[in-house]
Each structure stands twice: as C-alpha cells, then as structure tokens.
C-alpha cells in the first residue's frame, strides 16, 4: 500500500474510488436487473432485489404487494430467521401463533400463509423444496451464542440473530420491542408425540429454495445465523441468496387464496383494508 497516497483528500478520494467494481461473496447486486441468477421467465426490468446475505449477516427490505421473494440456501447450511412488518403500518406484524393456529398446522410449506396479528395474510408460500422450517424455536440471542461459542456480538465473528434483528429493524425506525417471535427458514423443528422438539439441522443439499408472494406491502428483516438448536461446536452457517421481482397480487381465483376458509378470510381482510 506504500504507493497509495491518502495524505490529502484528492489522494484519499482516488484510493476510495479505485475500489469500485470489487466483487465479494456476500453483497447486493445493484441494480438488481444485472443479477446473473435472475429466475427463469422473469424479465430483467422486473427485478427488485438481489443480495447474498453473509454467514452471520442480515438484511432488511421493503416489498410491494404482489412481489415475489425467493430465498436460496446456496451451500446447504443457511438459517434465515425472518421478521415481517406491514410497510404501511409497521405496528402490524407477523404473528407466529396465529399463523399456526389459524391454519390448524404446525409446519410451514408450499401453500401455507404467513399471517399478521390483525387477521391478514402478509406472505404466502408459492413453492418450497426445502421442507425443513421452524416456527417454534426462534432467534439465537447473546446468551445462547455466548454459551455455545463463547462470544456473541455484532462486531465479532459470532453474531446472534436477535442482535442482527435489532440492526435490521432499526433501519426502518423500529426498536427492541418490535423484535417479535420469528420464523426460521431452512432449518427445521418437528414436534414429537411428547411435545419434544426434533431439530433438522442438516447440512442439506445446496441450492434448496423457497418462494414467497407478498400479499401486503411488507418489510422483511432477515438474519442468517446458526439455528439455536444447532449443536455443532463451530459457528456453522453459509450464505443465503435473496431475490425479489415484481409480480401481480393474488387473483381472485388463486388456489392458495381459496385453499381454506380461514385463509380466504385472511385475503378478504387484506382486500377490504386496501379499498380506499
């Protein structure tokens, strides 16, 4: 670095500008229309977001109703913990208990809905070839990471999901009280007959994917940290890819919209709220 002059603003500016074009594994593609892994059939101009979320990293994004949101478990060890807020009124947010209870089912997968605490559908699951997800065990936190890895902070090598969420929600003006119970994608928890949690940690085949559709204008906040039931001694997590593109809201004859009477009412409540 001895040939770099950063002793004056012009030199410092030249040094800074020389970094342009650097590619690293975990970064957003801006503009997203230039993403090389654009989904088949999606025109470039429809792309809204393309970002690789680092192992231990986080991201937050606002998406309009109708947008498709795809997550890819690039190397088989991603654990994407997700919070969801109404973009219009963030005090409306994901309710994990209602999501399970209203659908009479403990497990998330293709065709299931992600419900808000106001009787509305935030997201629906269009496709899911992972089938190992978790609505029970939530985010790691400073205490759980410190216990397992001896260290836990955002500025260190072993960030925890809760502290990642704190940064993600802060970017939208939200705080600690807004970090609600979350959903973990790609790492699974099943419930045994005695109520016991059975973790499905993998590692799994690379490239598993999940595609969601925004049914309201939403803010999603993601943290990619090891699952709280992951017993491996090393902090083990691999990058996740997020892709989003513009799409039409669910039509009235949409099969997911009409799959159950409870789910249909969640769509009706959204549609009613949007009548202006």
């Amino acid at each position: 670095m001895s040939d770099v002059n950063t002793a004056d603003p012009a030199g410092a500016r030249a040094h800074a500008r020389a970094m342009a074009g650097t590619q690293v594994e975990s970064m957003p593609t801006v503009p997203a229309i230039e993403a090389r892994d654009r989904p088949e059939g999606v025109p470039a101009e429809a792309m809204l977001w393309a970002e690789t979320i680092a192992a231990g990293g986080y991201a937050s994004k606002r998406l309009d109703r109708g947008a498709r949101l795809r997550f890819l478990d690039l190397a088989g060890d991603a654990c994407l913990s997700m919070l969801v807020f109404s973009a219009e009124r963030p005090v409306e947010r994901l309710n994990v208990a209602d999501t399970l209870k209203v659908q009479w089912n403990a497990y998330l997968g293709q065709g299931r809905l992600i419900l808000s605490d106001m009787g509305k559908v935030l997201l629906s699951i269009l496709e899911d070839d992972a089938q190992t997800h978790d609505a029970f065990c939530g985010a790691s936190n400073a205490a759980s990471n410190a216990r397992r890895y001896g260290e836990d902070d955002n500025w260190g090598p072993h960030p925890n999901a809760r502290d990642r969420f704190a940064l993600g929600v802060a970017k939208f003006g939200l705080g600690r009280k807004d970090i609600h119970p979350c959903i973990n994608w790609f790492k699974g928890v099943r419930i045994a007959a005695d109520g016991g949690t059975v973790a499905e940690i993998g590692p799994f085949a690379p490239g598993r994917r999940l595609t969601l559709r925004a049914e309201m204008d939403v803010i999603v906040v993601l943290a990619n940290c090891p699952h709280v039931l992951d017993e491996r001694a090393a902090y083990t997590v691999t990058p996740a890819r997020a892709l989003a593109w513009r799409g039409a809201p669910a039509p009235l004859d949409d099969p997911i919209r009409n799959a159950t009477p409870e789910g249909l009412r969640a769509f009706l409540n959204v549609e009613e709220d949007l009548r202006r």
Partner: protein
Amino acid sequence: MTTSAIVLDEIVPARAPWDAVVRKGQTLRIVDLEGNQAVDFLMYALADDAERYSAQDTIAAQGNIFLRDGARLLSNEGRLMATVSATSVDYHDTIGGACSCESNTLRYGHHTKAQHACVENFLQANARHGRGKRDMVSNINWFMNVPVEADGALGIVDGISAPGLFVEIRAEMDLVAVVSNCPQINNPCNGFNPTPVRMIISG
C-alpha cells in the same frame, strides 16, 4: 413447606384483564376455580419492559413445547424470568397465542369480530403502564391444551384441568405479570363457558 405471607389474593372475573408486580422470590399461584379456564399470561421485566417472556426461547431451551412442573420461563434476552414451581395440571400451552377480534374473524367468521378477546384484555392492561401493541408477543396459556399430532395437525382441544387445580410460578426477577382471563366462547379452551380464576401472590 415454609410459611410465606400472602401479599395479594384476588379473584379475576370471567373475561377480565389483570396485572400485578411479582417480586423476585415471590410466587404467583393461579387457581382454575371452576375448571378448564384458559389463563392467557405475559410477563415483562420490571426494570426494562422491552425484556419480556419469550415462548420461542423457552421452547428452544427446554426442548419441548409444553410447560410442565419445573419449566424455566425465559425472556427474549435468554434470561430466566420465572420457574414453574408447582402445577396440579400435567402441562400447559405456549404455542397457541392469544385470541383476538381479528384472528377470530379468520378462525370462526366475521360474526365474531365484536366479541371480547384476550388481545383486547392485554392491550387494556398494558396501556395503563405505557405499553402498547408492540408489546404483544406469544404468551403462555395456563390450563389450555394444544397438542401437535404426527402429521402436524394442531389445535385447541378439550382441556385437562378441573375445578380447583392450579399452577404456581416463582419469580426469578422482579416482573410484571399481565393476564387475560380468556373470554373465548368459540372453542373448548374455556369449556365454552368463561369462569373466574384466583390469583395469589406470596412471599
């Protein structure tokens, strides 16, 4: 058994909210006076109410969705808030959440929109202390039965409590307990008949 002074002994009417401070070391006993009355329960750290009960942390740490005798009830910061120190009912629920006017419209139809609900009770009780909707998180349902079957089927089914059965927790930090004595009449969580419960704080 050591004798300890009763600090508070109150009846919560059917369908009503209730809240109280429970100091570290005190116990809170909830008595299901008439049987199968769901008692929706949240708690907040008295010193910092952004720290509150976390169903997900509690489930992950104990490796089970049911709250049984000895269960350690954790906060969203992973700290021990309270311990189930006694229960005469085998297990209690922490995945079913609270009923709300809005979720009732999904579960039963829009004719239930105007019925009283647990979220209404929680909002009313919390509003007196400056807390609001952001402070709603997944709660405990004492005396409520929510099994998960092998295929993932999940639902609120007939209770396993009976008149006079109780649960007792010991506070491991100073905390605020907030209760909704569940008014739900559309499922068996209250035997389709909401009834009073008794709250006893000792220590």
